């Protein structure tokens, strides 16, 4: 089943390489993502059996990531139905990459082998890079370049880390996760430490943890909204899954404190750095990129704090992805309508595009963790975890940074929504597909925030239980 789920988008991707109608590609993407989502939904009832000698296993953590990506792809594909109505560019490479990306993220969710995981994550990088340069111009190419450069280095470091882990696991002769976990006590500690550091820095580059975050504002600022949603909501969290796997190994082999201190350190950095840069920012997509860095910091912090923090981090994974739908799809709409995402060019959105204006406000609230959105709860849980593990200074610092982030993003968005009206350059109409995709994301996020389904709690608890 898992294999089919991986191979299906791949085949579809190959098939749309053929010269078919532009719209057909997107419709096929909608279909494939819907099927993907339906299958994923079935996994919530019953996890699938392991495949390929235990190389492909879907546990609760994988299920969370898989579901996130499923939802993201559905939202993005429907959004694209609307987006490409107004978009004259060819979409072959774009959609093909999207299909391959769906395939590879499914592989990431299901891979139960550290090497395979690395390969899967590396391929996601390859297929996401062309998405950034959808609009072929100076800035997008520059951004793609930076993205590739940083991520390749990260991937190389992660590979080193994987090698170190292989050395540490010299006795077991395999990097299969269950075997590693059951023989965790026999792992060579020094090599494992080295491995953990390299993996954190390597996957951290991919995830955009400070100080390896610098590609984010560039890439997110230049890529079209739907691509950013997949990157910020899906791909970065794939790397988080890798970090989570490392945490599982560390917990078993007595390196929990070692690992959590590193995690907390980089989490704190990822909170501080965007908070410093956000106030000078005037481009909404870049601002959201900083917000994304901060959310990654929160995730890592939750993982590092342990206990309820892990639950919080997993919950935040889901919320972050949904918030990214609202944030970046809206930003994408703005960019398409105004031909810019800068505050100078976009003002008074609510008077010209009332629905998009409302979405912008929702994006602000969702992205900064205001109440009806579930991000509120997960951020609170992680703060609470910080307090209850006696990291008082950390909690205070976190609050400070979140406050600054709110100021920075709110400053841009509220002025965009209500400011002195500027006329949109490209003046496209509001589109039902685009808006319903955003609205769906927002509604799900609000729904979870107001009433968290029991099944969700069960799955998250199951995933949190993986670290023991």
């Amino acid at each position: 089943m898992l294999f089919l789920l991986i191979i299906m988008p791949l085949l579809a991707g190959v098939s749309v390489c053929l010269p078919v109608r532009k719209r057909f590609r997107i419709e096929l993407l909608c279909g494939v993502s819907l099927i993907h989502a339906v299958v994923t939904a079935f996994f919530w009832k019953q996890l699938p059996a392991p495949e390929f000698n235990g190389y492909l296993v879907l546990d609760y953590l994988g299920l969370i990531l898989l579901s996130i990506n499923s939802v993201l792809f559905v939202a993005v594909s429907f959004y694209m139905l609307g987006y490409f109505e107004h978009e004259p560019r060819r979409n072959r490479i774009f959609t093909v990459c999207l299909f391959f990306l769906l395939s590879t993220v499914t592989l990431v969710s299901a891979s139960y082998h550290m090497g395979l995981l690395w390969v899967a994550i590396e391929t996601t990088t390859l297929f996401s890079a062309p998405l950034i340069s959808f609009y072929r111009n100076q800035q997008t190419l520059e951004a793609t370049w930076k993205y590739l450069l940083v991520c390749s280095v990260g991937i190389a470091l992660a590979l080193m880390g994987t090698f170190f882990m292989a050395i540490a696991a010299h006795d077991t002769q395999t990097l299969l996760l269950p075997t590693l976990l059951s023989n965790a006590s026999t792992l060579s500690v020094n090599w494992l430490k080295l491995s953990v550091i390299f993996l954190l820095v390597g996957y951290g580059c991919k995830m955009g943890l400070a100080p390896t975050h610098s590609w984010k504002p560039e890439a997110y600022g230049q890529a079209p909204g739907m691509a950013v949603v997949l990157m910020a909501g899906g791909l970065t969290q794939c790397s988080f899954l890798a970090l989570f796997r490392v945490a599982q190994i560390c917990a078993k082999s007595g390196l929990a404190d070692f690992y959590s201190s590193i995690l907390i350190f980089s989490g704190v950095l990822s909170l501080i750095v965007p908070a410093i840069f956000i106030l000078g920012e005037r481009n909404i997509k870049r601002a959201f990129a900083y917000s994304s860095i901060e959310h990654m910091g929160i995730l890592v912090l939750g993982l590092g704090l342990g206990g309820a923090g892990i639950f919080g981090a997993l919950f935040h994974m889901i919320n972050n992805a949904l918030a990214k739908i609202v944030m970046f799809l809206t930003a994408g709409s703005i960019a398409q309508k105004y031909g810019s995402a800068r505050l100078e060019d976009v003002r008074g959105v609510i008077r010209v595009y009332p629905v998009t204006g409302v979405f912008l406000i929702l994006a602000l609230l969702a992205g900064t963790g205001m109440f009806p959105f579930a991000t509120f709860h997960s951020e609170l849980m992680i703060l609470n975890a910080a307090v209850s593990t006696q990291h008082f200074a950390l909690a205070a610092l976190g609050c400070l940074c979140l406050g600054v982030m709110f100021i920075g993003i709110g400053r841009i968005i509220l002025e965009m929504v209500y400011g002195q009206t500027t006329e949109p350059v490209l003046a496209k109409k509001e589109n039902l597909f685009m808006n319903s995709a955003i609205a769906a994301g927002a509604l799900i996020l609000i729904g979870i925030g107001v009433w968290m389904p029991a099944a969700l709690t069960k799955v998250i608890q199951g995933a949190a239980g993986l670290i023991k």
Partner: protein
Amino acid sequence: MEIIFSKIWQVPFGALSLRLDPLSVLFLTAITILFFCAGIYSMGYLRPYQGKKPLVWHVFCYLFLAMMFGVVVTANNVILFLSAWELMSIATYFLIIFHDETPSVRRAGFLYLMATHCGTFCLFLMFFLMAHTAGSMNFDVMAHASFSPVVAGTIFSLALIGFGVKAGFLPFHIWLPHAHPAAPSHISAVLSGVAIKTGIYGICRVLWIMGVLPEWCGYALLLIGVVSGLMGVLYALGQHELKKLLAYHSIENIGIIAIGLGIGMLGRTYHLAFVSALGFAGALLHVLNHALFKGLLFLGAGSVIQKTHTGDLDRLGGLAKIMPYTSVLFLVGALSICGLPLFNGFISEFVIFYGLFQGLLTLPLQGVFSCGVGIVSLALMGALALACFAKVYGTIFLGKPRRTGDSALFQEKERNRALSPVLREATSKWMIVAMAVLAGLCAWIGLAPRNAVRLTFAGGEYLSRGVLMKEDFEKLMAPLSMIIGTVFIFMAVIAVLVLVRKVLLGKGSMPIQDTWACGFAQVSPKFQYTSSSFARPIVELMKKILMFSRQGGKVVGEFPVQAHMISAVKDASEEGMFRPLYIRFIRLSRKLDERRNKYTQMYLMYIFLFLIFLLIWKLR
């Protein structure tokens, strides 16, 4: 005495647990009254905006806000409280930016959102610290926990910041003087009347949960009260803009409330049940009273602004003849806020004064000194508030209009002479009804305070976690009933004096002429003292603190043509603290951003250094 409603709420740590206790009841009362009256008022006030503004959304936010206030003051669970708190802030934001086409309104709205959100983060920390110590997220369970002095002190400090931002304690009040004038008047009334009181409610709730706090907390709150109160009223004196002035008065009144709470805490620290009950009861009564009279004043200000399209005190004047009803109702509000007898402000200030004096006589030495300072500052606040409202009332409603534009209003009045007085006033009758209800309540508490005092005394006793003692209540009521008696005699004396005057003047009409003005022949309305010149002596005395600045005003040349003078009072904590901080931060941010973009290599360098750092740090 307490009603608890509890249901499951499926979010992390959440519980749909509401609880009604004397404290909640008190705040609920204020909320209900003010929302009701402001709602009635808005029926008239919003009429000109029909079809121009999304009124349905506005009304939805208004009702939603009312609901959220209700949840905030009754929530028994941290998550529920914080959720409602956030929603409340958001709804308030949308209400404030009703006039979103104006840049200053947008700025004010954002400032509000920014301040309140940052304050909320302190609350997160505070509540989690509490929950961590108490092991539960429910207030009633927390109340049974015991807190070590350090933890208790930390929690209290966080509460002072977190709730202080909302309440408008100095120096966290910066949003207040911007947001209040920006909002439409019925919203300003709600903001000032109850929104900032939720901060006070929060502090009360924390006090209730914490039980006994370290000694310094009471002194700290007293000090904050004194500083906020004095600075609030001084800033108010320096304002030219009516609603901004009222906003600063809200800060002053919050200061008075904080003084009351502070003395209550001192009483509790030293186990003086009566002092503590007096302090808390006075503070709570002032919460209620301030909601009434400040609501009234803001509504009145709204009528004035709607009528004249300006809130600039230096341009208004003589409105008592055009808006007779509003002028009388505004006078009631002004008298109440100055704490003058006949109206409710005096009652609550009396209770707080009583508490302070009682503390003066019974507390240990440092307490005595603090009470002395409290009394003197409260007295000074009273005197300054009186000066300020005499200025406001005198310049808006009395004298002559200070700009030529308003003589058009007078002509209009002449034309409408045939109409009924209410219509001539040209403000909707709903607006007058709403103000009249509030004014009536002010007078009711001022003249028959027993019920209101009982309500708040119960709240005070509850807050000091004592048992409601009949004697104590009677001990408070005794002087109050004497006061009421005196006030009734006072009214009788007035009646007699009026009669005497009538008799002495006899029948026949009295001659009406222009103002004598020492015989000066050509009296122009421009001769009148403006509000700025009225307040100048006091502002000059305090010009260092108030950052008072004057520009221009020199008349030069042998044949001087025209001269302009601008004087302004700047808010020290805004202009001297937060704004420079903000600007510097932004500059730093921009600078770093520029530097970062210079080389792509720097990106890789960071990774490299990070890796090296981790290796050295972890593998030494």
